[in-house]
């Protein structure tokens, strides 16, 4: 049987090759789509990081502020991947007598968290007297390079290094380093903005952990971000699902067509073997085995090609690599084997109805 199979495959080389190509394509498409699909949610969630914080931790009593080790606790509770930045707010007066919100923060953390901030020049971490001026606030100070502010009678001179454009409330504020803020105003950070990666389940879990570690604080999700992200990720996911099914169906039909044709082409062999006394099941088993061997070969080639395609698509679109996943192999194998089995058995059903005598006569 093995020798017969080998001969049959080698003898009809062109046909076997086209069937093998078809099965390789189907395996490649299945691999690529499944690999992408498996990675889709985390990739999409990653993109949503650009919206900034999705959880806000606020001190219950703003005058007291958050505990000193708040940031460490947040990092511990929210996970290593989470980004967080602390803020402290105070209302100071500019040299022109306009009240303005002064915010103390850690510039490096903010920069990582709020990618949408458009800043001409970020202040250096080393210099404690540098400031970032919101574009609206900047219009209410006399000298941007030498900003003179007063808080409860304490004057402070800051060097504005750049302007901040956000289109939001931040435009009306002046941001200064946290250490300078604390020594100047005596206030403590009162808000920590946290960006928890992942879907709403992860966010909820992180909120629960944060609440546990910081009983005194109010931990709230930024509702529109969490809800919106979930909605869009779910919808994109569903869209991809539809696309994957559609493409898989298209490829399956073409593979079916190619394989069926190759089996139908051999109806004379079939008739002859039947005339020689081969039973229906022996013949079916032969066709089936042949198709399955081809399907297996297709999976091997298709996995490599499909993984490469997934990697390329992911590089092009998300600029991050999607590594090959061995986890998709069983599913790809299953898909390919069932296509092959169906393609082999479908024409056999047609063949069964044919009379061997008529076939051999050369109809």
């Amino acid at each position, binding site marked *: 049987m093995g020798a017969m199979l080998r001969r049959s495959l080698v003898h009809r080389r062109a046909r076997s090759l*086209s069937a093998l190509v*078809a099965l390789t*394509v189907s395996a490649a*498409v299945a691999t*690529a789509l499944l690999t992408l699909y498996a990675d889709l949610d985390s990739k*999409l969630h990653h*993109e*949503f990081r*650009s*919206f*900034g914080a999705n959880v806000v931790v606020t001190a219950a009593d703003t005058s007291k502020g958050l505990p000193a080790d708040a940031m460490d606790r947040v990092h511990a509770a929210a996970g290593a991947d989470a980004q967080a930045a602390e803020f402290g707010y105070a*209302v100071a007066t500019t040299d022109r007598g*306009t*009240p*303005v*919100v002064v915010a103390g923060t850690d510039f490096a953390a903010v920069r990582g968290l709020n*990618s*949408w*901030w*458009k800043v001409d020049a970020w202040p250096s971490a080393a210099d404690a007297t540098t400031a970032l001026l919101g574009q*609206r*606030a900047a219009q*209410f100070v006399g000298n941007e390079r030498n900003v003179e502010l007063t808080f409860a009678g304490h004057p402070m001179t800051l060097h504005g290094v750049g302007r901040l*454009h956000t*289109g*939001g*409330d931040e435009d*009306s504020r002046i941001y200064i380093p946290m250490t300078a803020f604390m020594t100047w105003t005596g206030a403590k950070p009162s*808000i920590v903005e946290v960006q928890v990666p992942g879907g709403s389940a992860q966010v909820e879990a992180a909120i629960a952990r944060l609440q546990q570690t910081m009983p005194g604080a109010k931990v*709230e999700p*930024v*509702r*529109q971000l969490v809800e*919106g992200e979930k*909605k*869009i990720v779910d*919808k994109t996911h*569903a*869209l*991809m699902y*539809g*696309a994957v099914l*559609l*493409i898989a*169906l*298209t*490829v399956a*039909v*073409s*593979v079916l*067509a*190619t394989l069926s*044709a190759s089996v*139908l*082409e051999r109806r*004379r062999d079939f008739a002859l073997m039947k005339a020689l006394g081969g039973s229906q099941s022996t013949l079916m088993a032969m066709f089936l085995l042949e198709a399955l061997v081809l399907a297996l070969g297709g999976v091997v080639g298709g996995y490599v090609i499909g993984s490469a395609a997934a990697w390329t*698509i992911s590089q*092009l*679109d*998300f600029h991050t690599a999607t590594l090959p996943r061995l986890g998709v192999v069983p599913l790809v194998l299953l898909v390919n084997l069932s296509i092959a089995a169906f393609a082999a058995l479908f024409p056999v059903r047609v063949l069964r109805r044919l009379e061997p005598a008529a076939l051999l006569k050369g109809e």
Partner: protein
Amino acid sequence: MFLRLLMESFRRQRRRKALAGLAILLGTTAVTAMLALATTIGDRIHKELATYGANIVVYPAADQLEVKIGGVDVKPVSGGAFLHESDLKKLRGIFWANNITGVSPELPVQVLGKTGTGADVDAAGTGLWFDHALSNGTSASGESALKTGAVTMHPWWKIAGVWPREDHTTAENAEVVVGSALAERLKVGAGDVIQVAGQPGNTSRAMTLHVVGVASTGDSLDNGLLLPLNAAQRIAGTPDAVRRIEVSARTKPEDAFARKDPDSLSPKLKEIWYCRPYANSIAYQIREAIPGARAEQIRQVEQSEGTVLKRISGLMWLISGAALLAAAFAVSAAMATTILERQAEIGLMRSLGASKTTVAMLFYAEAGLLAIFAGGLGYLAGSGLAAWLGARIFEGDGGVALHSLLIPVLFPVVVALALVVAIAGSTPAIRRALTTDPSAILRANV
């Protein structure tokens, strides 16, 4: 005879044609559906992204500095500059007017009064449009109707009860909803009233506010009152005044060109810049349309939306490409199969003296007819599928009717693609059949 040959081949060999036809049909269905979804994905995702609220904010250029911490006005501004509510109609006149999908003006007002049980009320009120017809889509100007307001712009707001109706505002009465935190503190709910005293020493009026619901917004507004804009103007004594306007616009993600300062560009480039739906261009047009206004993109929303939109539509296009490849493969395989099945026929025609060109023409014509027919059907099926998928996935956007997915431009594109693929897919098989010795084919007992 050529036509007869074609016709009979279609009429009497339905099963064989069905295979190739099915492959083309499925292929074009997949491609049409994917392309239709990919071209409309921008609008759909934009609609979903509306969840994040406005992407452009408009405020008076001569405004005072806001002193807000965590969304709460620490030092409420009294007086200050305002925009005119009556100017908002002009938003419908700008170049990208039809890209503006939402407009929500705001007027903060301090509400001082008493509840029905006698508790004192001192809360921040916000005057808003809830469901306001900004334009009723007069056919003469060709603009579409736009009913908008804070509710559609903030889909994450939740209401127990109903939103206030601005046409119920009279000189003495108005409907109002109470923020959830405030409602808890004041112990008021739907059906209660808040008697506004009016502010002594200025033009503000006394009013009776009828609570029609309790709103949960998830931010500082939960500590205040939401009331119709006209009622807020009446209480504040500033008719026609608006402090701030949030605008939601469909935009093109920002690129390097979008970041250019339009006034530094050459007139020609400026026109190009002006005529692209960048958030910056739309903001620029709003500044032009509304006197004394300053319009800016809300970068958190606009920039991030741009990224998400780019990724998702990029993904859709790449998947469409994959669908196209898969479909091309499917169609070529099926075409090759059907032709190779008919090698004997080709051999016979050759022996009857048909030239290679004639035979090739015949088979190409068959492939072409099949491609046009099945491709056309596939286009319809794909459009239907896209509509169905779109409706299933993006439910509740009832506005996307079938006609918007029956993209006519796609029809020639898809059918041409089907033609090209069918013909290209047939070529190797036809060539093989023609180069094989006809006598060999005739003897092969196929």
